């Protein structure tokens, strides 16, 4: 009995040590980023080096959050609104298109299922740079440049394969018999998807939502090419800190800290579903 409890204690200690290491590893650079955002350049280049700035200042945050007309603040808020709108919509559409696709791939063997796989994969493999210019030309002719629809369609197209594949994986893990049983009991296909598959794969869907949102939120290259004035997203606004002569690092740091908040908030909210106890024990024989 004693031996067992000592064993458990050692295990727990090791567990907590690892956890602390992981937390430190994850947060250390980010904490330094926060420190940078309340420093001045002088603090960053002073010798001997300090971890906490001598004269911490909130002026970077002030300018970004409360600036007036033509200032960074206005741009920043504008970019945030655009990013939110575009990211949420793209994620939503990717799910709407991807869930049925993943479902049919995992449940049916049909001619062309291979083609679907290849198609979706090809889309991911092609470096974005390749189609940037031809796509620009097409979008220009369709008058989709600098519009919300234009950018959302592109983002959805890029996120879609990922959604399909990930959900395919999760759906595969759910035995076919479950939804077959439901259909035999009188449920429609769509109903089966809603009542059986989605709840059981909730962790997967939650994870997918988080990632799609973050990918769209942080996407830079296409936002650069396809937005101009109306639909500037947050990463583009932040890139404005990159001037010919440098990068205004302290201001950029402040904007980075603020820009990370929505994705992390969404992650914190959704990760509850990942815990979801629905899955545990659901498949008990």
């Amino acid at each position, binding site marked *: 009995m004693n031996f067992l409890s000592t064993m458990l204690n050692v295990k727990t200690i090791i567990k907590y040590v690892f956890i602390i290491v992981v937390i430190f590893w994850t947060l250390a650079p980010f904490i330094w980023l926060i420190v940078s955002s309340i420093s001045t350049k002088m603090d960053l280049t002073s010798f001997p080096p300090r971890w906490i700035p001598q004269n911490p200042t909130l002026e970077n945050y002030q300018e970004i959050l409360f600036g007036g007309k033509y200032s960074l603040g206005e741009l920043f808020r504008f970019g945030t609104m655009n990013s939110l709108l575009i990211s949420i919509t793209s994620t939503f559409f990717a799910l709407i298109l991807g869930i049925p696709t993943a479902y049919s*791939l995992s449940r049916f063997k049909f001619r062309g299922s291979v083609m679907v796989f290849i198609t979706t994969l090809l889309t991911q493999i092609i*470096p974005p740079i390749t189609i940037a210019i031809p796509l620009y030309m097409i979008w220009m002719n369709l008058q989709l440049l600098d519009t919300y629809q234009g950018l959302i369609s592109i983002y959805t197209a890029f996120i879609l394969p990922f959604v399909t594949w990930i959900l395919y994986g999760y759906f595969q893990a759910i035995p076919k018999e479950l939804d077959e049983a439901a259909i035999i009991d009188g449920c429609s296909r769509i109903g089966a998807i809603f009542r059986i598959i989605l709840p059981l794969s909730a962790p997967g869907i939650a994870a997918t939502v988080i*990632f799609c949102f973050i990918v769209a939120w942080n996407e830079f290259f296409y936002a650069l090419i396809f937005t101009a004035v109306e639909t500037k997203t947050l990463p583009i606004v932040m890139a404005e800190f990159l001037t010919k002569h440098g990068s205004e690092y302290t201001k950029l740091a402040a904007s980075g800290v603020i820009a990370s908040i929505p*994705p992390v908030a969404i992650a914190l909210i959704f990760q509850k579903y990942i815990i979801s106890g629905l899955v545990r024990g659901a*498949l008990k024989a």
Partner: protein
Amino acid sequence: MMMGIKKIYPYFLTFPCLFFLFSVIFFPLAFSFSSSFYNIFLIRRETFFIGFDNYIQLFRDPYFLYSLWVTAYFVAVTVSIEVSLGLGIALLLNEKFKGRSIVRGLILVPWALPSVVNGVMWKWIYHAQYGAFNHLLFQLGFISKYIDWLGDPFTALNMLVLADIWKETAFPAILTLAGLQAIPYGLYECAMIDGANAWQRFRYITLPLLKQILAVVIIFKTIWSFETFDLVYLVTRGGPSAGTRTLVYYNYLITFRQSLFGLGSAFSWIIAIMILFFAVPYIRRFMLR
């Protein structure tokens, strides 16, 4: 009637997705594929058909071959470390402990950081004189003198690997965690009753059931690793001495800076084929379920 409906159903479900992808992606793709066989002077709007010359020219370029090696190294190291590290973290986060939900959210912080900020941040962290990395290592006594981490081609590459690991490990970690969550606890209980130890439980229960998820994670991680751009652009500009010039970055230089669109397209297709090369074995295993 029902048989008929059943047959159409899958097509019905996948059609919107495919239609969307075709309209947005495939036409430009086709255009770029055909462009790769032309010498295109965007400036003079002239195009000359040259067959495979673009492809040949690339393989004769020593910098192309060098960037092949740089990319291979980068992808191999980052993917293997990130997936294994992610698995480890997922296992850890699967355990019960206080504050678990918060930690799970915090793991995503690096991934949530916009790449612009991430790039410039690491540029500062690695700086020879003012970098936090030097400060930290020096104060902990690991180094006796400040080092110019980005000053040597190979060291710079490894530093980029480190930065990438920091930023990207959350992705495999969270996905694997979700997969772990789907494994019913009951299975472990049965195994424990049968006398299996931790390693055996991991090897015979966890790993097989994670196969699907791991395969997907590896495929996507590999693809995205190949396409790493922002980190290279913001931290090292592909230098020093082309030491961190990955295939994608070099492609960018050719397509956008040098406006050699035909060559750039050919380059992209070479990259795509290479990625396919890596992905196909996984897909095969994955689809031959």
